[in-house]
């Protein structure tokens, strides 16, 4: 008797959220990192409102990508290190579902705080308030694709020692379309144009990634266990 895919998904999601809740400082790090990266630009380049408005959408999206990258390292590593991943591999439940649930839990605990901080930072970049819904909506729709694509890289590098830098080299080229569409959607909203089409495209990327990335990361995670 094995648990159905829905039960497995719920059980893994619940467990990972519970673990993250008890280690909340790990979860807060990406948001802090995001805050610091975004703060660097006005200080290092120019604090002029006009300039900041022009680079704001791009900086916020690149910041979200970097925060995702930073958080990814821990996505599977803890489970591999304490042996719970072995137990997951042994159990009779579909591994892609497990990977999807783990990635979702990871997104909720690390990227959702980033999205909460983003509109506040957007105001400091003098983005018009009308553009904020597009920014937040775009991040909500688009960042799952970043986490999902990143999960493949995290699974491929989990058994390797120098995982961090290699992970970035592997997944950033694959992630590129997301910040490109996302920043452009926000740009359009800043300029008063209609961004809906791009938001649909971000959604398409996330859904596509949700369908394919768990298969790849499920196949890859076995390589890290030996």
């Amino acid at each position, binding site marked *: *008797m094995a*648990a159905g895919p829905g039960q497995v998904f719920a059980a893994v999601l619940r467990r990972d959220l519970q673990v993250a809740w008890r280690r909340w400082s790990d979860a807060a790090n990406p948001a802090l990192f995001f805050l610091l990266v975004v703060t660097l630009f006005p200080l290092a380049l120019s604090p002029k409102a006009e300039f900041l408005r022009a680079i704001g959408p791009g900086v916020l999206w690149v910041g979200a990508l970097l925060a995702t990258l930073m958080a990814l390292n821990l996505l599977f590593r803890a489970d591999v290190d304490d042996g719970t991943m072995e137990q997951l591999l042994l159990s009779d*439940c579909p591994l892609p579902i497990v990977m999807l649930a783990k990635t979702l839990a990871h997104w909720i605990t690390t990227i959702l705080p980033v999205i909460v901080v983003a509109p506040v930072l957007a105001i400091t970049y003098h983005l018009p308030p009308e553009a904020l819904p597009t920014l937040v909506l775009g991040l909500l729709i688009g960042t799952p694709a970043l986490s999902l694509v990143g999960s493949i890289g995290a699974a491929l590098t989990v058994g390797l020692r120098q995982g961090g830098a290699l992970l970035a080299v592997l997944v950033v080229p694959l992630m590129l379309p997301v910040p490109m569409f996302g920043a452009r959607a926000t740009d359009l909203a800043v300029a008063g144009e209609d961004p809906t089409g791009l938001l649909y495209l971000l959604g398409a990327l996330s859904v596509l990634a949700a369908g394919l990335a768990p298969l790849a990361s499920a196949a890859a995670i076995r390589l890290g266990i030996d």
Partner: protein
Amino acid sequence: MLTAEGLSLWRGDQCLFRRLGFVVPAGSATQVTGPNGSGKTTLLRVLAGFLRPETGTLRWADETGDWDEVSRGRVAYCGHLGGIKAELTATENLRFDAALAGVDPAGIPGLLEEAGLAPCAGLRAGQLSAGQKRRLALARLRLSGASLWLLDEPQTNLDDAGRHYLRSLLAGHLRAGGCAVIASHEPAGLADLATGRIGLGG
């Protein structure tokens, strides 16, 4: 019943075992012995499906198909890594395993009681001692419903009461028609429960 035929595995240039074949009938245990580095753990990990042998096949009764798939849900593995989440309590750890196996979690307090972990059921697993963690990992074996248990040095860190718990656990499993492969560098210990023997290396 587990049947292994012609298993070979190299680690780099070193051959750990070559054309290894054995049968573990239902209701029996087989002990794998050998010095450190002889490939006991590796053999167990092959049986668990974590490693693919260079050559050879593994079969469960008369099931056909890849061991990867056939073994899932049939095999329980208790190795060096406990597979215990330090942030969760002992009960929560077992609840998760029960949910994955699709088993009713009502039996968990009883299992913890048997393992002598009832007093620390609500404690985070990170705060348990090494021996207590090992007991928790053993308690999970019962929960998985697996027929083949793979135990890698199961007596490590266990005190007398713990060893006794392990013996009774294993004996009950074998009585119920299950089978087990036990890796151990000490020939005594569980030897009387094991009918088969595989010697590696040396």
